[in-house]
C-alpha cells in the first residue's frame, strides 16, 4: 500500500497534467491542415436516388457524386453552366443536343455514356417507378442516343422550365444504367456507382457524411481532399459550431442575421443572400366570412407588411410583391393593395361586419412564423377582427389543407405559409391552380383563367410573353383578395474566413466549388 500512496504534491501534479491535456486535446483532435472542409447540413440524407430525393441535404450531396449535363453556377445571377457535358445546345424548341466530356468513368470502372443519360431521364416517366419528381421531366418524349458520348433530348413540346429546374438540379443527375438495373431499378442511400468531383467515402447516420476527392474526375478537381457534411438540425447549434471552429460553413437563423451583421463571428464572415422562397397570408374562400370578397379585401388592407416583417425577421427581410422573387422572370414590380386600416373598416362595413368577427390563423410552429402571426393578429385587432393563432408541428401543418389527410382543411380561415422555390416561375405558380384545391391550394381559390395561364406559360418560349403571363397570374391572385404577399425572406450564411464558398444566388452551396481563401 505504501508503494502506491499518493502524496499531495503528486496529486496536484497529476491534476495539473490532466488539466493541461484537457486544454490541449481538443485542439489536437480538431486541428486541420486545410485539406478537410467541414460543413453543416440541416438534415441527414434520406435517399440519394434522383427520382426520390427529399430535399436540399440530398441535392447538396448528389451534385458532388453524380454528373449532370448542366448545373446552376455560383454567383449573384441565376445562370446555368456546363457540368459533365462539353456541349448542350437547344437546336429547336423540342430538341436539345448534348455531348459528354471524355474520360468520365463510374466508380465501378464503366464509362459514363449517352445511354446512361437516356436511362437517367426516361426513368422519371416510368409509371412503375412512381418517381416523386416526374413533373420535372413531364415534357420529355425520349432521349435519342447518337453514339457513346452524344445524344439528343427530344421533348413533346417546348418546356423552358427544363433549363432552370429539370436539367440543372437533382432530376438532371446522371446515374449508371447497368449498376442501377442490377439493384432493381432504384436505390436508397448507397449509390450503385458514382462519378463526380467527389465520391461518398463514409456515411455514419446522424453523424456525418464524408466525401472524398475523386482522382479520376477528368475536369477541374475539387479544392479539398475531403468534405465532411454534418447533419445539424438546430440553426443556433450550427452557429455556435461555426464560432468555435468546429465547422467552416453553416446557414444562419434569420434572428441572428442582424447580430452577425454588427459583429461577425470570430474568424468568420457572413453573407446575406435573397431567398427564392415566398411567404404569404392566404384566406380560405370557402370559409365564412372569407367567402365574401369585401372581407378578403378588408384583410388585405389591414395588414401592415413592413411591421409584420420587422417583428418576424428583425429587419433582415424585405416585403414581397408576389410569389416570384426579384431577379427571376415573372417578378412583379409592385402590389395592388396596401396597408390602409380605414379602407379595411369600410370594406368590413360593406360586408355587414362593422363589429368585426372571430377567425383563426394557422401556422407552422417556427419562431418567425409565430412572430409574423402575432403581428398579423395585432393588425387585424385594429380593425376589429379577433384572430386566434393555431400552431402545428411540421408533420401536421403540411397536411392541414389536404382533403385526404383529415378534416382540418374545413376549418382553415387564414393561414400563413411558406413554400420553397427553384429559379423558374412555374415552380411557384403550380400550387394555386384549380386542380390543386384540396391538395396545396389551401385558399381553395378556383380561377380557371389562372389555371390556363399556368399551363400556357410553361410552354411559352418567348421570354417577354412568358414574363407577362406570370405577372398577370400574380395580379389575378391578389385581385381575388385571398392573398397577401409577405416576403421572400433572406438567407444568412456564415463561413470561416479560411474558405471561399461557392454559392448559388440564393445561397445554395456548391460544395465542390468551395476553395481555401
Amino acid at each position, binding site marked *: 500500500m505504501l508503494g502506491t500512496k499518493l502524496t499531495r504534491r503528486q496529486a496536484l501534479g497529476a491534476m495539473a497534467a490532466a488539466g493541461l491535456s*484537457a*486544454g490541449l*486535446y*481538443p*485542439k489536437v*483532435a*480538431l486541428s486541420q491542415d486545410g485539406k478537410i472542409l467541414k460543413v453543416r447540413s440541416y*438534415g441527414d440524407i*434520406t*435517399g440519394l436516388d434522383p427520382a426520390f430525393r*427529399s*430535399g436540399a441535404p440530398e441535392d447538396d450531396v448528389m451534385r458532388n457524386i453524380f454528373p449532370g449535363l448542366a448545373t446552376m453556377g455560383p454567383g449573384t445571377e441565376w445562370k446555368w453552366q456546363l457540368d459533365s457535358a462539353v456541349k448542350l445546345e437547344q437546336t429547336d424548341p423540342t430538341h436539345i443536343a448534348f455531348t459528354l466530356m471524355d474520360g468520365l468513368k463510374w466508380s465501378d470502372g464503366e464509362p459514363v455514356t449517352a445511354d446512361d443519360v437516356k436511362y437517367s431521364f426516361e426513368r422519371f416517366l416510368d409509371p412503375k417507378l*412512381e418517381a*416523386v*419528381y*416526374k*413533373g420535372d421531366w413531364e415534357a420529355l418524349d425520349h432521349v435519342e442516343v447518337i453514339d457513346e458520348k452524344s445524344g439528343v433530348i427530344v421533348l413533346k413540346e417546348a418546356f423552358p422550365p427544363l433549363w432552370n429546374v429539370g436539367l440543372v438540379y437533382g432530376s438532371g443527375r446522371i446515374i449508371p444504367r447497368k449498376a442501377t438495373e442490377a439493384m432493381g431499378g432504384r436505390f*436508397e*442511400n448507397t449509390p450503385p456507382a458514382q462519378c463526380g468531383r467527389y465520391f461518398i467515402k463514409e456515411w*455514419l*447516420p*446522424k*453523424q*456525418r457524411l464524408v466525401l472524398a476527392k475523386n482522382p479520376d474526375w477528368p475536369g477541374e478537381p475539387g479544392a479539398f481532399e475531403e468534405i465532411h457534411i*454534418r*447533419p*445539424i*438540425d*438546430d440553426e443556433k*447549434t*450550427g452557429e*455556435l*459550431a461555426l*464560432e*468555435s*471552429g*468546429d*465547422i467552416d460553413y453553416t446557414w444562419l437563423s434569420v434572428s441572428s442575421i442582424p447580430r452577425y451583421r454588427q459583429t461577425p463571428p470570430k474568424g468568420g464572415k457572413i453573407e446575406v443572400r435573397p431567398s427564392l422562397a415566398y411567404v404569404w397570408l392566404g384566406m380560405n374562400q370557402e370559409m365564412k366570412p372569407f367567402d365574401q370578397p369585401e372581407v378578403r379585401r378588408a384583410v388585405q388592407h389591414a395588414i401592415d407588411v413592413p411591421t409584420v416583417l420587422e417583428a418576424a425577421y428583425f429587419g433582415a427581410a424585405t416585403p414581397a410583391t408576389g410569389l416570384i422573387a426579384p431577379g427571376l422572370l415573372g417578378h412583379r414590380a409592385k402590389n395592388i393593395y396596401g396597408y390602409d386600416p380605414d379602407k379595411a373598416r369600410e370594406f368590413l362595413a360593406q360586408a355587414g361586419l362593422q363589429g368585426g368577427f372571430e377567425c383563426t390563423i394557422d401556422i407552422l410552429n417556427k419562431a418567425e412564423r409565430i412572430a409574423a402571426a402575432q403581428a398579423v393578429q395585432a393588425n387585424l385587432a385594429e380593425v376589429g377582427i379577433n384572430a386566434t393563432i393555431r400552431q*402545428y*408541428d*411540421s*408533420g*401536421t*401543418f*403540411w*397536411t392541414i389543407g*389536404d382533403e*385526404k*389527410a*383529415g378534416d*382540418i382543411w374545413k376549418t382553415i380561415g387564414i393561414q400563413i405559409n411558406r*413554400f420553397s422555390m427553384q429559379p423558374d416561375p412555374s415552380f411557384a405558380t403550380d*400550387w394555386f391552380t384549380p386542380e390543386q384545391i384540396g*391538395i*396545396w391550394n389551401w385558399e381553395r381559390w378556383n380561377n380557371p383563367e389562372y389555371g390556363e395561364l399556368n399551363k400556357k406559360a410553361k410552354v411559352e418560349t418567348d421570354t417577354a410573353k412568358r414574363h407577362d403571363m406570370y405577372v398577370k397570374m400574380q395580379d389575378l391572385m391578389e385581385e381575388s383578395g385571398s392573398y397577401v404577399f409577405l416576403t421572400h425572406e433572406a438567407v444568412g450564411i456564415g463561413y470561416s474566413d479560411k474558405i471561399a464558398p461557392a454559392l448559388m444566388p440564393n445561397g445554395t452551396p456548391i460544395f465542390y466549388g468551395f476553395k481555401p481563401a
Partner: protein
Amino acid sequence: MLSYGLRRLGLAAVITALALIILISMIQMIPGDPAAVLLGPLATPETREAFRVQMGLDQPAVVQIARFFGRVLTGDLGTDVLTKRPVLTTVMEQMPFTLWLIFFSIGWSAALGIPLGCWSAISRGSWADRIIGILSVGTIALPSFVVAIYGLLLFSVALGWFPTIGAGEPGDPLDQLWHLVLPSLAVGLGWVGYLARMVRASMLEVLSENHIRMARAFGLKEATITYRYALKIAIIPTVVLLGIGVGNMISGAVFAEIVFARPGVGRLIFDAIATRNYPVVMGGVMITTIFYVLSTLCADLFAAWLDPRVRTSL
C-alpha cells in the same frame, strides 16, 4: 430471491406491453399524413396513395398495431420509410450513443452526488452542509437546456476547451469521451443535487437508528460507522432512484442530442415523429421502453439483494 425475480420479470413484461400499446395508439392518433410529409409537395395523389398502401396506413389502427406486434415476435421491427433500412439496424446504430451519454451522466453525477450527500449528512448543520444544500437545490432548479447552452457558449465558444457538436471521431475513444463532457454535464448536473439531497436524507434517517447508536456506544470509528454501516443501508433508495434515473435520462438525452448535434436514439425518435416515420417511432419507442423497464427491474433486483425485506412485496 428467485421467486421475487420471476414475479418482477413478469410484471416488467406486462408493463412493457401496456406502455407500448398506449404509446403506439397515441402515435396513430396524431394528425398528419405521413405520405404527404415524407413525399413532399411534388408527389401526385396516386403516388401518395401507393405509399399509404405500402406502409399499411390504409389499414385501421388496430390492424397496424397487431401487425407491428406480429412482426416484433419474429424479430422484425419494420423498415424505415425514409431510408428503406431495417428499423432494428437504424435504432441499434444510434442506441450506443445514447447509452454512453446516459451512463456517463449518471456515473459522474453519482460519483459526486453520493459523497456530497454523505458529507452533508455527517456534518449536519455546518457551513459545508448549508453550502451543499444550496448548491444541490440550485443544480436541481437549473433547467438542463440552460446548462447545455451556457456550457456551449462558455466552454466551447469562449474558451474552446470542448467541441460543440458530434460524438467524436469513430475509433478514437478519447475523442468520443471528449465529446461527451458537455452533453453529460447538461444531462447529469441536476442529478448531482438530486442524489446529494436523497443520500443526505437517507443517511440522516439511518444515522439516528438504534444500531448506529449502539455502534457508537461500542466506540467504533465515525468513518467506519458512516461508510460500513450507515451508507450501506442509506444507499438502497438511491440505487432504486438510479435505476429510474437511467430510464428517465433517455428523455433528457433528447435535448442534449439536438443541442449538441449528437447521434442518438432520442434524436432519432424526435426526428421520426416530426416526419411521421411511424416504423422508426414504433421501433425506437419499443427499444427504449424495454430499456427503461429493464433498468428499473435491475435496480429493484439489486435493492432486493441488498435488503431482503423488499422481496416480500412486488
